[in-house]
């Protein structure tokens, strides 16, 4: 019997495919964001609002990740330059997108005709935090009906987020959601996070979110030159 040292990161395979994805995106100057939230927080609504606001400035494509159905892809197909639906129910990871799924999706997207790729992850606050996809920015949406305790209950997804969106702000008069407490908890683990308070229903706050996105895209394209 002998002991053989290995010391190998088990997520290395995913991380190396994610790096390849980002190289391919950078080659075509496509900026990608990974949008994560619990089911029903407003990922598809945010995508539709973002496209409505920015479609005159950017060519936007969407990757939809769902356990089942093509409902979300159908909602965005008339708005985006291209849509790829990933249905995860028969895959070994069905609770999150992983880099390999995005690698396949990129093959069927017209990358040279795209400026911004919005990746809608599977609705889940746990599993997507473990898998990078090759995205440039990670965005987490929390909506008011979910309650203000999510950063404390699901810390890892908030710890790595570049931006956190507080959605359904139009419901604030009816709910006991403590926005400062939510922000304090999310910032506790993530000092660099940006917050956006908005309503995809009324459009309130979408302007700020889109300005940030445009700035990030600009900063990334300058880095690539």
């Amino acid at each position, binding site marked *: *019997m*002998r*002991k*053989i*040292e*290995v*010391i*190998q*990161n*088990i*997520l*290395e*395979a995913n991380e190396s495919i994610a790096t390849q994805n980002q190289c391919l995106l950078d080659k075509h100057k496509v900026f990608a964001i990974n949008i994560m939230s619990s089911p029903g927080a407003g990922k598809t609504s945010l995508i539709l609002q973002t496209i409505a606001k920015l479609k005159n400035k950017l060519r936007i494509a969407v990757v939809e990740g769902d356990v089942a159905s093509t409902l979300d892809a159908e909602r965005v197909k008339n708005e985006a330059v291209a849509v790829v639906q990933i249905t995860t129910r028969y895959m*070994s*990871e*069905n*609770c*999150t997108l*992983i880099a390999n799924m995005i690698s396949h999706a990129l093959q069927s997207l017209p990358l040279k005709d795209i400026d911004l790729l919005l990746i809608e992850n599977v609705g889940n606050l*746990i*599993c997507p*935090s*473990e*898998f990078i996809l090759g995205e440039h920015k990670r965005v987490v949406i929390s909506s008011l009906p979910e309650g203000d305790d999510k950063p*404390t*209950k699901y*810390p*890892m997804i908030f*710890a790595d987020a570049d931006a956190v969106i507080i959605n359904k702000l139009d419901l604030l008069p009816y709910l006991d959601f403590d926005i400062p407490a939510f922000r*304090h908890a999310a*910032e*506790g*683990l993530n*000092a660099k996070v940006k917050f956006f308070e908005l309503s995809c229903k009324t459009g309130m706050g979408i302007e700020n979110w889109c300005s940030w996105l445009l700035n990030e895209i600009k900063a990334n394209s300058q880095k690539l030159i």
Partner: protein
Amino acid sequence: MHELGITENIVNIALDKAKEVQASKITKINLVIGELSGFVPDCIQFYFDFLSKDSIAEGASLHFELAPAQFRCRSCSTVFCPQNTIWTCPKCQSQSVEIAGGRELYIESIEAK
């Protein structure tokens, strides 16, 4: 349910290593899993038993070493293991911290003959 793909990776890494050192049987795989990582040892064991069938890793035991969650206070740099989910620095009471440990997920070693 994201342990299946992860367990496939564990089996592949262990089999590759065993081949490299010309081992004929893997008896144990020593894994380090961080307390903050979202992976469940029981789930990995379940999939491992299934995925290692008919390979030289069949019947190997999995040993999980749990790496504790550790935070570093952004105000005073104290490194501490949190006692609750509020994550307050025990020295200066700041609630602004960064993760210093607990997200590990790697194969430390295999035991083989």
